[in-house]
């Protein structure tokens, strides 16, 4: 019969229309910004820098190794190394960035900087309401805009942060145990022979221990 398909189609539309009064899940529109969906834990937008403790300058995990700057596909990261070193979370002296800029108008939110970072220093933020009319002051993020506490990271990506924290704590414990063992060995050596220990025993390893961040 001619027109049968049209009647069938209209019935399907009518079912959808009337169904929206009965079934909640047929109302799919979310009235943003009054209504908001919960964010997914894996959500990502732009990177930020993690710091431990309360002082962002002291606790910044970034050691200015410039790996993210090299690997960033659109080259939106700009780093200048500082001449002054600062101790990291296990007390080892590390470099720090003098300048760390991310141009979020260039960044394409690909997360490659996070993946290649061996120090868990850069992570993805979930903040997305960033519209502004000031391109240079608001979208070119400086070190102080980027630095956010580890607590914030734990809040936005709980399970990921728990894994990172566990790994860092294990590394710290290992480093402390090693330092203790070294000290004991040194003390023993000092007792056994009165002459000073060779210089090589005092040297701390110059290369930072590689974090197993990439093994996952």
């Amino acid at each position, binding site marked *: 019969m*001619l*027109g*049968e*398909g*049209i009647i*069938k*189609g209209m*019935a*399907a*539309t009518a*079912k*959808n229309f009337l169904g929206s009064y009965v079934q909640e899940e047929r109302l*799919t529109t979310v009235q943003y910004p009054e209504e908001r969906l919960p964010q*997914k*834990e*894996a*959500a*990502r937008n732009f990177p930020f820098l993690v710091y431990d403790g309360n002082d962002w300058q002291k606790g910044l995990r970034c050691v200015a190794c410039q*790996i993210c700057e090299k*690997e*960033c*596909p659109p080259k939106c990261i700009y780093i200048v190394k500082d001449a002054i070193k600062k101790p990291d979370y296990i007390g080892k002296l590390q470099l720090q960035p003098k300048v760390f800029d991310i141009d979020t108008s260039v960044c*394409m*939110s*690909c*997360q*490659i900087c996070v*993946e*290649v970072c061996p120090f868990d220093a850069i992570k*993805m933020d979930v903040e997305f309401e960033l519209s502004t009319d000031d391109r240079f002051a608001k979208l070119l993020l400086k070190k102080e805009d980027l630095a956010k506490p580890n607590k914030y990271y734990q809040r936005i990506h709980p399970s990921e942060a728990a894994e990172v924290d566990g790994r860092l704590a294990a590394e710290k414990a290992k480093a402390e145990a090693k330092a203790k063992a070294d000290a004991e060995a040194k003390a023993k050596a000092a007792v056994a022979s009165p002459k000073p220990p060779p210089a090589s025993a005092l040297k701390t390893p110059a290369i930072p221990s590689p974090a197993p961040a*990439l093994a*996952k």
Partner: protein
Amino acid sequence: MNTVASNFEIRSKASPNGEMAGELLEVSMGPQHPSTHGVFRMDVVLDGERVLKLKPVFGYLHRNHEKIGEGTTYLSSMPYTDRLDYFCSLTNNWAYALAVEKLAGLQVPERAEYIRVITAELTRLQNHTCLAGFLLQDMGASGTPLMYAFREREKILDLFEALTGARMMCNYMRFGGCRCDLPPGWLEQAKKVVAEFPRFLEEFEALLTENEILMSRTQGVGVVPRELAVNASLTGPMLRASGVNYDLRKVDKYGIYDRFPFRVPLGDHGDVYDRYMVRVLEMRESLKILEPAMRDIPAGPIVDAKAKLRGFRPKAGEAYGRIEAPKGELGFYLISDGSPNPYRYRVRPPSLINLTVLEDMCLGHYVADVVIILGSVDIVLGEVDR
């Protein structure tokens, strides 16, 4: 008297035996035309409403994809592949990862293969629903089918966001596996979406498939004969709608596609209706792949232990990786000279090559049919222009 704006070229047509003959009109359709699916332009020569000549003009969205790929590391090209066919970023990722894996000789673990199949088939589902919605939008069914399609697509995009962190620019696959494991509860959610999908398909088909207006608009329009389809190296649903049984999932059996029982839907006439139907049937076959894949997915690692992110330098050589993307054969050709960057990086985009028969399909049809013929090719300009 010439009252037409100067960018339209008016030529008088020779009237052979003194009959009344209209003038030919050259119309530039696009690049801002809503029916051109992006910034695509067609120079159409019309005799009244009939198409006499059609010349596609590309390049408005050209962004140097291949040259950028040669200037950056292998890993850095991965997020750029998302931006090729931005509807199907996960299949783009897979094709590129496949090419690099061939080049570097990496083995993909079992679990990662399953995740790849699941994400690729979900991508196919959402691409085909959108295509059907947009095609109907082009036909004048403004809103309803497209919104129904988008409602379904949203559920799949939610799954992608939960897994990869982004709805469209997923950047998920890595050389030798995937970036992260499935989050807890994801598989259950995906199973629910897949289980509810047939209900949507039935509703969609009740709305459209036997609709008289759809049938009269699409049947016999934009026919691609079998020989032309093969000679023009069409791939994907375009080729299969012309009745050629060629699906890379069956031909190459890349990944683990040989483990799933699914059929390849074929068209008979090669017209717009067949291309629509082939895609609807393909969605049903995708569901047949998804169900066993989500049931059988094993536990285990998701990335090859030999694969490394930084300092990745495959040995010198060349490789071509290709997959059956929702739009057709998507291939990446790479030449390595042992450095961190590929020496040559080439994409074989299905949209561009399927678009080459546009003039053959449109000749003799009305200008309103050009719109739906273009819609049935399923192009994404991000991939056409690269």
